[in-house]
């Protein structure tokens, strides 16, 4: 699993790190920003994760907020983090299992709607692009999770959207 983690803290400011966790036996193989790191991470109690990083011991407490961000506490240090799975953002290119029923397509991150690729009533294939959203200077195509018909478009071109805001509905 690959994640983009947006971190904020008093000591370090705002940062984005890419972390990859591949299961290997009972543990994970870890890469940060493409570099393999020697890490041993275990959830020792609910919301409490022990990390041995090259032997250096850390304990991190995780507190999720209703807005989707999570708070990470390690000793006196606190980080606010937002996590996203780049695959979910760009849509799956291969082997995506098709979902059923009426689907709300939401913005996975705050950004700006650049282009609408479909109109209400259009027939769409699973994986077809619906809306292009720009976030962090990158254009991202939001794709349909299923084959169906565009029932509703909730946004206009040029509109700013928040994470979790409904972009369109495919039924």
């Amino acid at each position, binding site marked *: 699993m690959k*994640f983009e*983690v947006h971190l904020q803290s008093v000591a370090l400011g705002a940062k984005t790190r890419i972390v990859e966790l591949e299961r290997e036996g009972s543990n994970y193989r870890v890469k*940060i920003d493409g570099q393999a790191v020697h890490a041993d991470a275990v959830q020792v109690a609910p*919301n409490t994760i022990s990390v041995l990083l090259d032997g*250096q011991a*850390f304990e*991190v407490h995780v507190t999720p907020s209703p807005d989707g961000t999570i708070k990470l506490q390690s000793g*006196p240090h606190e980080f606010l*983090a937002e996590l996203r799975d780049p695959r979910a953002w760009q849509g799956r290119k291969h082997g995506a299992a098709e979902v059923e029923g009426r689907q709300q397509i939401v913005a996975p991150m705050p950004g700006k709607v650049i282009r609408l690729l479909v109109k209400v009533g259009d027939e769409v294939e699973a994986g077809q692009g619906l809306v292009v959203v720009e976030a962090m200077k990158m254009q991202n195509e939001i794709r349909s999770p299923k084959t169906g018909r565009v029932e509703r478009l909730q946004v206009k071109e040029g509109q700013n959207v928040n994470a979790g805001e409904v972009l369109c509905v495919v039924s």
Partner: protein
Amino acid sequence: MFRKILIANRGEIAVRILRACREMNIRTVGVFSEVDRNALHVRLADEAYAIGLAASRESYLRIDKLIDVAKKAGCNALHPGYGFLAENPALPRACSDVGITFIGPPAEAMEAMGSKTAGKQLARRSDVPTVPGTDDSLENPEEAQSLARTMGYPVLLKAIAGGGGKGMRVVPNDAAFAAAWRDAASEALNAFDDPRVFLEKYLIGPRHIEIQVFADAHGRVVSLGERECSVQRRHQKVIEEAPSPVVTPDLRRKMGEAAVRLARAGGYVNAGTVEFLVDADLNFYFLEVNARLQVEHPVTEQVTGLDLVKLQIAIAAGHRLPFAWESITPRGHAMEVRLYAEDPDNNFFPSPGHILARHAPTGPGIRLDEGVYEGYTVPMEYDPLLSKLIAWGNSREETIARLRRALDEYTITGIRTNVSLFRRILAEPEFLKGEIHTKWLDELLTRPRPPAVAPRQGTEEAAVIAAALWHIEQAGKPSNEQPRALAPSRWKLQGRREQRDRTP
């Protein structure tokens, strides 16, 4: 001894009293308001009864309901804890009316010592020093100046009709007296149409040091030594310790004797605290009496080895204080921090809510008096005190090191706490040297905060890995809080596909 005690309180102090009762083989009866059904004291009590709505005046302050529960449950005694009704003489009276023993001072002693003015009068009568000054106006400046000389500078001139700092002057020395008198009097005349002023000794950076006293019903009164509570935020104690870093054995004896004299004069019985202000020259002045068990009683317990709550119960049951306690001296050092559900980064705004996870510190020299648990929701209706973390050791340095270590171990997530405030105080050079006074913390908080300490190498990476791992493990388990769209079963999809393919 009592068979059953009603605990007329909530939170950590109710739990504290409950524990003492259990050790003495006394059954406990708890009470709770509608928002406290899940509180720890209700879980731990032998019996617990609802007494009304969330607002204290509809529950914890209702003497009638408390007495009603005590009678129905067959209690022989009632412990008020601190706060709520602990210093209301109506409660001991209501108890004695129905033949229930009140674990605390008699109503008359509360009245004789409880209010500031009554306490001050009693102090003067029993030869306990009060802040020197005159309560009455002074007619001529010469008379006032000679009084100021005997009192010692600096002194404070205050308008009798005063308020808001008008007609108030600090006089640093004898040379400045005449001018200050003129200014104060004319300012008072302009502001209040009354030129009269009075004189009080001005204490520079006073320390708050209090004496724990115990009195039995047979005339013996003892002092259990002092606690220093100078670290205060807006007059609220934040850190307490025993012994005080500045109290010498001689001063301890003098303050103890003064406190005992006062308690004796007021007909005091059971646990009480006599508060003093202490100036830079170690002169002490009576402030007020707290006619109850104090929040900070554990620091005295740790340096004397006594259990003050059990002692309170024993005295209420008519037991005598052992003679040997008249010469008790503290051993080692103890310090307490008050952990509150409040946000130090947001003007100490209360932060009640759901405690998601909690890890309590343990190990040598650590005690946690707590009223919360993991999964508990801290209600918004009451004082947001979560727990009192107490450390003790052979020296003040060892105690502070233990307290720091325990604060690092203590984790509580889901709500904000003031832990970071203590990390800051316990690193301040002035605090470490014991150079504190009652305005010290308020002044500290106006200074710029020291730059955030850079986390040690790897902390950020560890946080990022933890976030990703948490996300994966969270997704892997069914969650009640955040229902997420389940991926459809592949078997089902395959079945649909096959069916569709068969359809002509």
